[in-house]
């Protein structure tokens, strides 16, 4: 029998969808506004640094707000309390997810270093960081979802 999806799993699905939307919005506007003609290296760096900072409110809008709304709706519909979500099982799964994020992000970090050595543009270097941050976040959530389904022994 297929087991019901737990609140933690639903939360992770919201996080995955939020990540996809927020990075989608980020890239849509970043490349729409990116006009490298006449940009100095400093202008280029400022543009992508500003873009990275914009990712914070974008993620609040597309991840944290839906997350709060979900908890309110879930509580109204199921009357189930979301207590003790950060218990030992949750923490272990979270730490495994974080570990996976760092593996992916570390690969991106070294990728960016290689890009510097290969004289790639600032745009390429920043985008390696952003892309691997995105992939790392996605991998973190998907791996947590996997551990909630499969369990950890």
């Amino acid at each position, binding site marked *: 029998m297929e087991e019901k999806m737990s609140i933690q799993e639903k939360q992770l699905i919201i996080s995955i969808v939020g990540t996809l939307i927020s990075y989608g919005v980020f890239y849509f506007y970043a490349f729409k506004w990116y006009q490298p003609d006449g940009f100095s290296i400093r202008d280029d760096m400022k543009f992508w640094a500003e873009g990275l900072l914009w990712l914070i409110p974008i993620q609040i809008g597309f991840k944290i707000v839906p997350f709060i709304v979900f908890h309110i709706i879930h509580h109204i519909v199921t009357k*189930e309390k979301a207590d*003790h979500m950060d218990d*030992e*099982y949750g923490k272990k799964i979270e730490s495994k997810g974080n570990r996976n994020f760092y593996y992916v992000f570390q690969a991106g970090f070294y990728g960016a270093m290689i890009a510097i050595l290969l004289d790639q543009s600032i745009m390429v270097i920043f985008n390696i960081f952003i892309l691997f941050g995105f992939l790392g976040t996605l991998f973190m959530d998907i791996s947590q979802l996997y551990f909630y389904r499969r*369990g950890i022994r």
Partner: protein
Amino acid sequence: MAIKDRIENNIRTLRFMAEEMTQMDLAEKVKVSRQTIVAIEKSKYSPSLELAFKIAKVFEKPLEEVFQFIPGDSKKK
């Protein structure tokens, strides 16, 4: 293929015998999420010693009546 050591438990039976205590009730008593109780019951998660003792205390049973260690066939060299 080597079979790993595992920990099994009688929580489902003990809950049934304790006036059909729900997973949520047990979770609240030992201060964990319901999902954690589900995972322990299905042997998908081996709890910490502290949590195992807390669960045993709820059912007023010694630890070994709630959890059993099943050794695998892994050989020490």
